[in-house]
């Protein structure tokens, strides 16, 4: 590599890192508890225990659960039902009206039913009164800094800069290591040299993991625009047939339990985990939208939408997911590290800590750059001098 190209890559590495480091530190620190969110949620969980029933107890009809929900909140609309495949629960989300809910989904509230007895187990606090939980704050800081979609796009840009910093770091690694053995840490010369060596070592050994978590982070942050794109293209084309038809009102709805069975029959080998009612901005105006997932580690991350006509109960069919939403779905586990048991989560957290050290040492090297040059540059950084003409001049 020529001196000029090394110089340019150094510029890319320096500025991509400098801009994203503060935000990446927030992302890495909040990511630590988020890796263990299942364990922490379970630990903080003060929900009433489930009734002990024989394992073969059949699930209650969703019609019964829908009816109970409407009796508890007359005049409200059912937004969706989540039929867990993990615990015997059905979570029904309701809202005062579709207009309210579609304007701000946070106006919704939920009721948790026992899936077998259809008894109410727990309810959310009224909309707006839900206090911030620790994990809720962590996820907002991690995802959007409490700034909604603009915050997500901003964090996507920061994650992209992080990926660029990794790539430019890789390019600079070879000229830097030309005269050093792999894993050299010169701890006895100067602190700056020690941290430079550590920065390079920690960065290069976590390279593949950090690239994957960084790149999948970018994709995850783009989920809102990606789903919007799908709604405006494939979904719109599919719904053309119903264009202009009046929205199915609650009184016109066919049996949701029958629709669930229709959706199940249409997705053999899959598990239906939720239904979105007609009227939701996350569904259509005329259908029950069911989400089904596969049963292997990989396919359980891939969700397929199935539409059932909400008035007639007739199957409309499964909707093909475009490649970019499949990429988004694959990006989730690869970003969260939640697909290989607790040991994988612990390794994920340790790699996250290593990344914090890489970021911190990078910041230290950048902030301390003047202190080491030019007077002291000759003591420790001589090895760098031939390959890094920019070192002293920064």
């Amino acid at each position, binding site marked *: 590599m020529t001196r000029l190209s090394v110089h340019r890559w150094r510029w890319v590495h320096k500025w991509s890192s400098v801009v994203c480091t503060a935000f990446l530190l927030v992302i890495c620190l909040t990511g630590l508890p988020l890796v263990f969110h299942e364990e922490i949620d379970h630990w903080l969980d003060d929900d009433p225990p489930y009734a002990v029933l024989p394992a073969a107890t059949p699930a209650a009809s969703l019609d019964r659960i829908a009816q109970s929900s409407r009796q508890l909140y007359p005049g409200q609309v059912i937004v969706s039902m989540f039929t867990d495949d993990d615990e015997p629960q059905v979570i029904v989300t309701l809202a005062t009206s579709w207009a309210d809910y579609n304007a701000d989904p946070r106006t919704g509230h939920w009721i948790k039913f026992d899936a077998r007895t259809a008894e109410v187990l727990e309810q959310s606090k009224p909309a707006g009164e839900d206090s911030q939980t620790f994990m809720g704050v962590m996820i907002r800081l991690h995802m959007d800094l409490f700034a909604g979609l603009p915050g997500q796009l901003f964090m996507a840009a920061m994650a992209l800069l992080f990926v660029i910093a990794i790539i430019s770091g890789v390019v600079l*690694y*070879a000229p830097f*290591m*030309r005269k050093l053995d*792999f*894993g*050299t*840490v*010169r*701890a*006895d010369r100067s602190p700056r040299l*020690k941290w430079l*060596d550590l920065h390079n*070592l*920690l960065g*290069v*050994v*976590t*390279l*593949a*993991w950090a690239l*994957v978590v960084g790149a999948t982070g970018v994709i995850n942050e783009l989920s809102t625009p990606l789903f919007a794109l799908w709604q405006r293209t494939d979904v719109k084309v599919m719904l053309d047939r119903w264009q202009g038809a009046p929205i199915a009102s609650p009184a016109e709805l066919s049996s949701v339990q029958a629709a669930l069975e229709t959706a199940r029959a249409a997705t053999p080998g899959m598990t239906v985990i939720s239904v979105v009612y007609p009227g939701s901005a996350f569904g259509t105006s005329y259908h029950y939208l069911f989400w089904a997932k596969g049963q*292997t*580690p*990989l396919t359980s*991350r891939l969700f397929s939408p199935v539409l059932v006509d909400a008035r007639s109960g007739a199957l409309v069919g499964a909707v093909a997911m475009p490649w970019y939403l499949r990429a988004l779905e*694959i990006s989730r*586990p*690869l970003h969260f590290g939640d*697909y*290989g*048991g607790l*040991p*994988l989560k612990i*390794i*994920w957290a*340790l*790699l996250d800590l*290593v990344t914090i050290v890489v970021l911190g040492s990078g910041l230290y090297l950048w902030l301390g750059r003047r202190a080491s040059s030019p007077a002291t540059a000759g003591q420790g950084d001589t090895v760098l001098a031939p390959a890094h003409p920019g070192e002293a001049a920064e």
Partner: protein
Amino acid sequence: MISTATLTAGRVWRWPALIAVLTSFGLLSALLGEGGIWWALSWVTLALPLAVILACAARARRG
């Protein structure tokens, strides 16, 4: 004939490239394989960077 630049790159990248390939394998094995050995392989390969860091730090401390 192999140039000295290629030799240098090969020497410099031998270990980092091997670690990157193994960690990539670990990232995929738990996702594509069904539990059991595939999980264990992903734990071992993804813990490799951590082990290398500890080994290098220990070596530096010994001088």
